[in-house]
């Protein structure tokens, strides 16, 4: 799938996971992510992927349950009590707060696994390519750093071996100086060679992408989005903060596009938009639009769940089930491809 489709999919899955807090929906999302991640890991011949992620998920659930259970004493079903005189944790340990902790752990774990999956799905090249043209010098720095990285690692290994042969025990921090200094010197020598080669090939001057007007536009956009967030927190009418969000986002996009057009970028090995990618993008677009519509008419709360004040079973809706199937889309696409 095209990298942009993966990013759209990431946005959709993340938004749904953070909105619902219904454990059943989150479990469905998790199941899909484990299936997808496992498949991608197998394709890349990686060591077992499911087990470390499962271990992380369980640790997060355990930690979150403990923290929430010990500190939060909200809820009607008291399991046992800790003396009130104990600072911070004194009070009833309630079933509801423990369940809330489990849900928190599930959400954090799902987000972690979601990003682990996206790290598997996208190659370094694809991620670098996603950097906007307005940040062209930065993209060049990242590309060079990634290119140099393996040779620097190799050189570090060679210097370390040479030092060990000479009897350096490599136990104290001071023992690392004979590795760090030659590594730094030889790498910077290479940087000079690279700079000279770049200059000789006419790459001396970068396009000046920074302009005060663009900088002010970006600052203004950030302030708009920030103000929208504050207004939303204080429950101002949605018209105010949604307008600020839209204005801010549009200003960032327009500024970056305008500045990016000035960058001289060579395009090669461009990613193609296959029919499957276009179909997936359209499907995720409909998903996000549907979600935004529900948010606008105030129906998103029906997807949510809170165990407080007394624990009850979470409601299950067809709409929620459909939304929670989003991680399955890449599996179907990969299967089709």
């Amino acid at each position, binding site marked *: 799938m095209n990298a942009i489709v993966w990013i759209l999919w990431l946005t959709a899955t993340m938004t749904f996971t*953070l*909105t619902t807090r219904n454990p059943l929906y989150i479990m469905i999302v998790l199941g899909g992510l484990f299936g997808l991640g496992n498949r991608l890991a197998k394709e890349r011949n990686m060591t077992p992927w499911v087990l470390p992620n499962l271990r992380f998920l369980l640790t997060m659930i355990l930690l*979150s349950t403990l923290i*929430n259970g010990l*500190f*939060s*004493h*909200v809820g009607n079903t008291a399991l046992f009590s800790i003396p009130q005189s104990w600072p*911070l944790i004194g*009070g009833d340990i309630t079933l509801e707060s423990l369940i*809330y902790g489990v849900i928190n752990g599930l*959400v*954090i774990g799902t*987000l972690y696994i979601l*990003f682990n999956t996206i790290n598997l799905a996208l190659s*370094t090249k694809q991620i670098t390519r996603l950097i906007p043209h307005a*940040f062209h010098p930065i993209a*060049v*720095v*990242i590309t*060079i*750093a*990634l290119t*140099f*990285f393996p040779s*620097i*690692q190799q050189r*570090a290994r060679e210097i370390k071996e040479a030092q060990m042969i000479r009897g350096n025990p490599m136990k104290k*921090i*001071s023992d690392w100086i004979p590795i*760090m*200094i030659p*590594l*730094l*010197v030889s*790498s*910077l020598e*290479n*940087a*000079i060679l*690279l*700079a*000279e080669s*770049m*200059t000789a090939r006419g790459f*001396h*001057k*970068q396009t000046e*992408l*920074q302009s005060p007007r663009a*900088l002010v536009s*970006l600052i203004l*956009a950030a*302030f708009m*989005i*920030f103000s929208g967030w504050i207004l939303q*927190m204080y*429950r101002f009418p949605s018209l105010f903060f949604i307008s600020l969000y839209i204005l801010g986002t549009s200003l*960032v996009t327009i500024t970056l596009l305008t500045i990016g057009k000035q960058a001289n970028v060579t395009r090669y090995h461009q990613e193609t938009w296959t029919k499957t990618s276009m179909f997936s993008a359209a499907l995720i677009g409909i998903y996000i639009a549907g979600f935004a519509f529900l948010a606008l008419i105030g129906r998103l709360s029906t997807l*949510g769940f809170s165990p407080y004040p007394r624990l009850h079973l979470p409601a299950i809706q067809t709409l929620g089930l459909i939304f929670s199937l989003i991680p399955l889309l890449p599996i179907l696409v990969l299967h089709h491809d």
Partner: protein
Amino acid sequence: MIRYRLLGLLTDAFVFALGFFSLISPFILPQAMSLSSQTAAFPIMVSLIIMLCLLIMVFEAQSSLLDSKMIAFLAVLTAINAGLRFLENAIPGPGGFSPTFFLIILAGYFFGSRIGFLIGAMTLFVSGLITGGIGPWLPGQMITAGWVGQSAVLVSLLVKQLEWKDKPGEIILLAVFGALWGLFYGLIMNLWFWPFLGVGIGQTFTQTATALENFQRYLVYYLTTSLIWDTTRTIGNVLMITFMAKPVLKIFGRFQQRFSFFTQEDRVQP
């Protein structure tokens, strides 16, 4: 020129204020603590605002990268530092020990705030790409590491003021600075997810509590969960700077001269 510098300073101040305000909003804005109004969107909104701050800072700082020398220099230094972080992941040291901060601090100290910021932010990004560490935590890590490098310029101003250049006081000041950032880095990074964990923690986060009370609660949380972790980072930074600063700064000085080659075009338009 003065106008550009003023704009740069104002940008830095605005970004710092916006990022810092977003992170500390649970202390000062009662609504940010409300479970019903925030739910889980809080860390995402904070991440988004931090990402915007990062975008502005990088956009502003990249004006230092207008020639091939700076690009090559920054790229190589980033690759070395990312390699050190890779080493940290492969052979985990005790607690939060990380060998990457000393190079960020020294680069910021020697080459100025923009280069310091870029090395900090780029190191975290490149190592994130290599180790598969891309996630919602990355913008926060990038901007905080950027601030580490950017603020190192304050040490250079102090050293200049005290005339401690090439004296033991220079290394002591840098080590103290590294120690402070060892703690601050954890303190700032915790703020990103603390409200998220704390949403359900009734006694830790209450709307009726004052900013000071909530700050005290955060400190208790920090002391019980992160202090040991961050102390090892602090000790690591102090040791790395104490042993490495002098030879590394010497190398920086040598290469600063060697990187000062000009093209004919540069000479015509100084």
